[in-house]
């Protein structure tokens, strides 16, 4: 029982972080129609912003919670700005170009961000100051860090907030309209350019929130972390059906399940990646548009 609760909690913790990242990836795909391979690097940059702000303030003041929230807000603002600028420079001129050239462009942006950070902040890994104090709690015979519960709760909170935003507000409806049909939406007085910028800002904010939660669970990071985050968030988004927010959440939790359970069942833990991707390939072969994706009928 205790093992089960422990595993479940780990799964929910990792899954909620993956879900946030996959949502950011998916929302950009849904609205701007591009696979943004710079998403992981946005995550990485926001980790660094948070690290620098919080380590200065934390050592100066010693306040923990307030510094955490403040540095999270700073990192959201800076990464949103970064995503906004990147979109204007590297993606907007390619709106009419073939889809793959935008992908290559985003890979280029990712390289630039990754190695700029590496040159300015150094290649050695950094450790985020422990701002969220964690107390062990016993649930069902298992001891769980209170931070795990906080991560899950905060992630869920943001997911619900985003989903309310998309469903209830005028802006959210406009976003969905652009995702459905850009041309028709522009006839209704919605500016696709503004909405695409907004999608990038939401995506970057989700990455920043994901990064802040990730740093609570796994405080050590380096400039190369973005590569893995890219693959994982892309994978989670596609697994659930790319462009669909519910699918991204489902994909995130499923990916976390494979990542957590596979090493427990397998004799050699290093085969984890193989199993994760084998599951992914099998799912896609059975359901070619992801778990929640709809089959689009192609017309000539």
């Amino acid at each position, binding site marked *: 029982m205790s093992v089960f609760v422990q595993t479940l909690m780990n799964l929910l913790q990792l899954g909620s972080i993956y879900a946030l990242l996959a949502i950011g990836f998916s929302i950009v*795909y849904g609205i701007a129609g591009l*696979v943004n391979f710079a998403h992981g690097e946005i995550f990485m940059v926001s980790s660094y912003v948070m690290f620098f702000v919080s380590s200065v303030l934390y050592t100066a003041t010693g306040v923990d919670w307030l510094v955490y929230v403040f540095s999270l807000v700073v990192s959201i603002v800076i990464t949103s700005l970064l995503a906004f600028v990147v979109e204007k*420079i*590297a993606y907007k*001129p*390619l709106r009419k*170009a*073939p*889809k*793959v*050239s*935008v*992908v*290559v*462009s985003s*890979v*280029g*942006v*990712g*390289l*630039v961000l*990754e*190695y*700029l950070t*590496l*040159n300015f902040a150094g*290649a050695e890994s950094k450790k985020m100051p422990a701002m969220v104090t964690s107390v062990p709690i016993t649930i069902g015979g298992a001891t769980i860090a209170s931070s795990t519960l906080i991560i899950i709760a905060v992630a869920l909170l943001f997911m619900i907030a985003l989903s309310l935003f998309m469903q209830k507000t005028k802006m959210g409806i406009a976003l969905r309209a652009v995702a459905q049909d850009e041309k028709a939406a522009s006839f209704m007085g919605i500016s696709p350019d503004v909405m695409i910028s907004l999608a990038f800002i939401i995506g970057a904010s989700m990455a920043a929130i994901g990064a802040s939660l990730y740093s609570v669970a796994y405080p050590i990071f380096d400039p190369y972390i973005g*590569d893995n985050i890219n*693959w994982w968030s*892309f*994978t989670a988004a*596609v*697994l659930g059906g*790319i462009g669909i927010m519910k699918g991204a959440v489902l994909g995130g939790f499923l990916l976390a399940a494979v990542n957590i359970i596979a090493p427990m069942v397998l004799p*050699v833990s*290093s*085969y984890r*990646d*193989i199993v994760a*991707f*084998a599951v*992914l*390939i099998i799912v*896609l*072969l059975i359901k*070619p*548009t*992801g778990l929640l994706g709809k089959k689009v009928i*192609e*017309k*000539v």
Partner: protein
Amino acid sequence: MKSKILKNILLFLAGLAVCFICDNLGLIKSSYILVVEYIGIYSIFVLGVNVVNGYLGIFSLAHAGIMAIGAYSSALVSMYVFDSIFTFPISILVGGLMGMLAGMLLATSSFKVSGDYLAIITLGFSLIIKSIVQNWGFVGGSRGLRPIPKYTSLIVIFVCLIIAIILVNKFVKSKYGRSILAIRDNHVASELVSVDNKKCKTVAFGLSSFLIGISGALVCHLLAYTNPASYGYTTIVDGLVMVYLGGIGSITGSIIGATVWEILVQALRGIGTWRWVIGGAIMVLVMIFLPKGICGNRELTWNDMKRLWAAIKEKFGSLKAAKSKASGKEGK
């Protein structure tokens, strides 16, 4: 017609002679020759990637995994079975054929799945292969395989490259080549005009993976070792960049892409990790200003070169004339 074939054969022999001289006489610094060798190998690699990503128009990320299969299988053959320079072609062929087998297997997944979902499957394939060679003790785990006999020389690469060019050229002009162009433009319509989509995709994947496998075999016999780290993120990105830089669906474009990127990477070696910042920026700029790559989806011909040369000459000439005019005026 006959004279054209004769001319090509003569050109081929001349190329062989140049390669032989470069290999054996030591007139040129070996570090320069190494760069040329890399360009040759990457040209074969990019030709392979281009068949699927360019001509067939499927966004595939499998090339790193297939290159690893080619490299490891050929290395094992020349380490344990045929250990002689005269049987080196067998090793290369084994590398290519193993790659081809994997590619044809992968092609079956493209029957049902398409677009970004297929990209994920091919990415998964690459990462699974990398993970397998990393965890398999027999091939050295993450330390990799060494020592692999160092058989690759400029002359071998040249012959392989010529064969690769002829293969791709013949393929593109064949029935299959025209069929995959139809599939790229619209796979539903191509099915309706009785193109066998499945067969054509399998053939295209097979040829592509054969070439990528050969490039893997060549590169591991050049460096005399191979390790799983060489077939990761960087290889995937390098392959994509070279294809889209040179031009999708173009043979000359593939070679130009490989050449430009390799020279750039070598030239920027002096500035350390900053080269990736510049490399990334160049990728973005090329995509913005040349969204179809340097060649677009057509071939660079001798006429293009002549026109380019004439344009340069004219510009240079007018510049010279303007200069002499200006100096003439000053003289007065």
